[in-house]
């Protein structure tokens, strides 16, 4: 081949810088479509919304351009809104807790069952994700009330003698909410379980630990971060959902999502609705930041 090596430093440099520029640019080119969607179709409307939350609301108009903190002041002084914030957090907390418990048991069950059941269970867990929220509400609507399937079934079976109703109770709202968030929780936890060596259980049993003790001493510590992540995911999710609790729950279950909808559409008060949305989104972002930091801890723990 070549007898002497010739290194053309200038051409090497240009090639190298071109290569490095390509390397620096590549991630941004890949991210471009997603960033366009987020920045343009989320960023701009968000800026509009933030701006909207400072507008005035008067004269029967949806909004009047102006600048006021009135809506934020109202948001944190009017008991209706402060209570709604508390209700939303409380509802999200309890529902996420229930979701995590059920989701954990479900994921554990699927993990322990032989593989041939697995696909079936996963299909089952996907169902609530795949069905429209309207259809889910509608389904529970026909199940809980006096002329619903539950009451009819129990009556036909002779277990009760008068029609019963669980409709429009906090219980019904929880049942609906958990139904909607369960799949997210389930899949997060299942992926955590899948990372655990099943032989650990045998090892623990071999060492004489009862199943309960094995659970407490082995399973719980191993899945703890997964539980936290699943919990915060459900929490974020339930914060924003409003249709299900409002359709199934009692009259006084006023959540932030419900009030946003009501202010925006029913009361034609866009600035107030925007202020509520801004606060909701900030809350969600805060939870996400915490979740994110927990997730990175988890990965570093695993590696």
């Amino acid at each position, binding site marked *: *081949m070549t007898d002497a090596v010739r290194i053309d430093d200038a051409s090497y440099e240009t090639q190298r810088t071109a290569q490095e520029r390509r390397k620096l640019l590549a991630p941004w080119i890949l991210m471009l479509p997603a960033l366009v969607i987020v920045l343009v179709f989320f960023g701009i409307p968000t800026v509009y919304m933030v701006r909207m939350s400072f507008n005035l609301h008067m004269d029967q108009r949806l909004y009047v351009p102006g600048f006021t903190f009135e809506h934020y002041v109202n948001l944190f002084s009017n008991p209706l809104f402060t209570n709604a914030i508390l209700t939303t957090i409380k509802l999200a907390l309890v529902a996420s807790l229930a979701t995590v418990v059920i989701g954990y048991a479900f994921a554990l069950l699927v993990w322990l069952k032989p593989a041939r059941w697995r696909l079936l269970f996963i299909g089952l867990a996907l169902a609530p994700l795949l069905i429209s929220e309207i259809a889910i509400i509608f389904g529970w609507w026909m199940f809980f009330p006096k002329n619903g399937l539950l009451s009819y079934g129990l009556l036909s079976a002779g277990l009760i003698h008068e029609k019963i109703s669980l409709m429009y109770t906090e219980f019904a709202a929880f049942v609906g909410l958990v139904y909607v968030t369960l799949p997210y929780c389930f899949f997060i936890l299942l992926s955590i379980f899948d990372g655990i060596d099943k032989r650990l259980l045998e090892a623990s049993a071999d060492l004489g630990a009862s199943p309960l003790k094995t659970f407490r001493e082995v399973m719980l510590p191993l899945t703890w971060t997964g539980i936290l992540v699943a919990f915060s995911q459900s929490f974020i999710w339930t914060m924003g959902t409003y249709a299900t609790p409002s359709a199934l729950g009692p009259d006084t279950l006023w959540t932030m999502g419900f009030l946003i909808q009501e202010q925006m559409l029913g009361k034609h008060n866009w600035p107030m609705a925007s202020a509520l949305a801004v606060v909701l989104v900030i809350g969600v972002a805060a939870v996400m930041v915490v979740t994110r930091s927990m997730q990175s801890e988890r990965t570093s723990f695993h590696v």
Partner: protein
Amino acid sequence: MTVSTALELRNVIRRFGTVVAVNDVSLNVSKGEFVTLLGPSGSGKTSTLRLVGGFENLDGGSILLNGQRIDHLPAYRRDTATIFQSGALFPHKTVAENVAYGLRMRNVPKDAIMKRISESLDIVRLKGFEARYPAQLSGGQKQRVALARSLAVRPAILLFDEPLSALDLSLRLQLRAEIKRLHDELKFTAIYVTHDQGEAMAMSSRVAVMNAGAIEQIDKPETVFHSPTSEFVYTFIGESCCLPVRVTSAGIEDKKGQAVGLRLGERLAEGECRIYVRPSRLRLISEAALLPNQLTARIHFIEFLGDLYRYHLKAGALELAADHAGSIGHGVGDEIEIGWRNEDMRVFR
């Protein structure tokens, strides 16, 4: 630089944070040469290989392949081919598709690809496996496909990244011989990374022993084995016993300051030093008496290794082991004489 140089590393540096993984490494690989990078984990051998392959960025120095600078090129524009530890076959492609992959990327015409697939599979003795998926192959077969895949593109240099370490012993030996045979036949240029000195000795034209990111010694396997230039190389290649001693005017003491029955043929300078001997080169009892270096030690315990017995011995604070074919007629607790030749001993300060 000569005509036959295939790969040249010049003062190559690679850092990970504050750790210097590759520290000023320079290396020439001639065409057709099989150079092994040998070293413990963390010695920088894999990093060096990945720098050549283009999977890591250089922090200093340069890399030349066939006289052209390549260190700025991405992996896919370098004429190198790596055989990965796990084989790294494409699981969704058949054996034939795996082998064809690199050729397709180089836009080789279709009929030429077909020809080369069959050639390459022939070479690694996997004819008839074309339609199988990697999941249907054994570990050894996977590695052979990986080899065929890399050979098919006829790279300027083949890079082996501990390709046998995931296999069991007998398979490892078998494949090792196979690679050796292929190299003899095809005369490809290769860098081979391993921590297994057996592999290094058996296959290499030259062995580069790496430690802490730098090449300690590079030479023919025999030279590296027989004439290690550093304490690290000596201890890393082959088995050795270390006798840490202090030489005083009165004689030789162990670390605790107790005199030990060590009699050396050559006089050592006073002060602390470490004397190394290999268990296979030690002679016991009667054989020992004729040799210039002798030590009286007590048998601590005895291991049976099949062909040999290994005697673990203690003399004061010194510990060493000696191999002997057959029994010597002494048991645990007995004091015996050990001896060795001058050329079988190394002293490092």
